[in-house]
């Protein structure tokens, strides 16, 4: 097991390296000079108007590969992502302030997705081709098509028109009022989670159908075990493994979704931070958030891989 974990960690290195190159080069895609553009658009903070200061702040006074190594070196050795062009705050400090909120929203949405997807998927499979199955499948295929930002808009607009209810816009931090905070995040989590549940639900159903046809499940039935035991203990455990993989694959969708929810419900997470940084062209922040998101997705997928052993003892870590 330990050898497997170490090998998986080593395998991350090329992926993370290419991810950092993607982040680094995307922000330098710009035709011409970022600084010329920033000065031309008057897009910069008053105290940093001089060219040299800007070049230094962005580290553009060096050749490309040195820029990359300086940037990477700063991150790896000192955890230094640079500092915001506008506020005198380090990028990593700002990210660490915002990350927990996004993480909380994402986790809540994921929980909603699983709580919806697994029971409905299982029910659809054990009652294949009944009305319940059709209903569950229609719901999931419909949810795949509904844009979460539209759902969010509808939830904001119609209760306000009909009953004069609108969600609290002022964000309540968790440590001030945990209950209020959870209540506030529950609506966006519910919307995001229901959108996400569609794929997992389909996967759970397909996998359950496959597993339910296996010999050992028939044996379990033949031994006279109850439906609950057969379905939950024998079938579901094996059907869940691909569903867990799917959670890893959905991580990017989940993070993309939190950006939209944070925008609609004005939640000060990392997504909103990115949007604010983009509107101010605060490149150190944009690069920082971009990289952290990529690393987070890679790590989530690692955890998913490692969790196989817990769900399925058959998986030998070869």
């Amino acid at each position, binding site marked *: 097991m330990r050898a497997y974990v170490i090998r998986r960690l080593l395998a991350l290195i*090329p*992926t*993370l*390296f*290419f*991810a950092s*190159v*993607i982040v680094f080069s*995307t*922000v330098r*895609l*710009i*035709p011409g000079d970022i600084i010329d553009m920033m000065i031309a658009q008057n897009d910069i903070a008053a105290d940093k108007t001089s060219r040299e200061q800007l070049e230094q702040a962005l580290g553009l006074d060096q050749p490309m590969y040195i820029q990359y190594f300086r940037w990477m070196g700063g991150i790896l050795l000192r955890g230094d992502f640079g500092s915001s062009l506008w506020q005198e705050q380090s990028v990593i400090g700002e990210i660490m302030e915002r990350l927990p909120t996004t993480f909380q929203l994402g986790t809540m949405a994921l929980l909603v997705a699983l709580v919806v997807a697994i029971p409905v998927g299982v029910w659809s499979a054990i009652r294949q081709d009944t009305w319940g199955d059709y209903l569950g499948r229609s719901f999931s*295929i*419909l949810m*795949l*098509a*509904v*844009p*979460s*930002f*539209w759902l969010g*808009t*509808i939830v904001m*607009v*119609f209760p*306000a*028109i009909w009953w004069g209810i609108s969600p609290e816009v002022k964000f309540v931090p968790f440590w001030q009022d945990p209950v209020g905070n959870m209540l506030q995040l529950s609506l966006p989590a519910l919307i995001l989670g229901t959108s996400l549940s569609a794929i997992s639900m*389909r996967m759970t159903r*397909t996998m359950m*159908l*496959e597993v339910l046809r296996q010999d050992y499940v028939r044996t379990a039935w033949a031994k006279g075990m109850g439906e609950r035991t057969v379905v939950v203990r024998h079938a579901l455990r094996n059907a869940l493994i691909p569903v867990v993989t799917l959670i890893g694959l959905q991580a*990017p*969708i989940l*993070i*993309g979704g939190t*950006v*939209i929810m944070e*925008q609609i419900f004005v939640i000060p997470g990392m997504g909103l931070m*990115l*949007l604010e*940084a*983009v509107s101010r*062209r605060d490149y150190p922040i*944009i690069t920082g*958030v*971009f990289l952290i*998101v*990529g*690393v987070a*997705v*890679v790590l989530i*997928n690692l955890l998913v891989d490692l969790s196989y052993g817990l769900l399925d003892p058959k998986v030998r870590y070869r």
Partner: protein
Amino acid sequence: MSVTAAPAETSAAPSPRGPMANFFIRLVRDKPLGAIGAVIFLLFLVCGVFADVLAPYGINQISPVNRLKPPSARFWLGTDHLGRDMLSRILYGAQLSVIIGFAAATLATVISVVIGIVTGYLGGKVDLIIQRVVDAWMSFPELIILIVVVSVLGPGMIQVIFVLGLTFGIGGSRIIRGAVVSVREQMYVHSAQSMGASTPRILLQHILPNVLPPIIVLFTTRVGAVILVESGLSFLGFGVPPPAPTWGGMLSGTGRTYMYMAPWLALAPGLCLTLVVYGINVLGDAMRDLLDPRMRGSR
């Protein structure tokens, strides 16, 4: 060479019809939901292509007297805060979605096919390295890549098409690669190799036609995915800039504040998006089952 390679179960007698006609007959007979999806998809195409003819008013024809009018015989879907006809804007929005959806999905499919066929067939170190880059690329959410690129290049239709095509193209290359790997070891590929056929010839003549079904399915589903992500991007204000009538953009920006007075503004764009993406998804599912038995899930 037949593209749709009818499975053995249905090939009773050689049919005088072409493969396309055959496909549609099977679609209607075996997959009624998919046929509904096809109808929605065609309707969407017609609306997009003929928006200029169908729209009763101009895209940005402002009419201050008719601000925020509810749906009526004159304005079927009502008007927005500038008195612009929502039906016309929805139709022109369909046009934008058709253009972006097809252009980006085509670009994505081409990229997927090139990467997928080359890495899947060649294997070895090239495959290993390119797959790590694909891994790295896929760990970024499409929406975030788009936001970052637009922050650098500025908003606009070309940027959106390019980045959507690149993002979905790199991600989708996995599906094509998987199909190529399973075709690569077939007898006819080995015999072509032993006859001394060149690699490009094998790729184009033997591999490509046999991975066509997943390519067609991939393209179809990508149109829907592109439209959905583009609308999210426009909603956040990073898509094709206003006053272009994107469906996502109509739900955001200044229009949002008027939705409380004119709720019809919130309904039409979202319903259209949902309907079109739904249609494409069920069509894609049906096509997968009919064209590509290997990708078939359990019913």
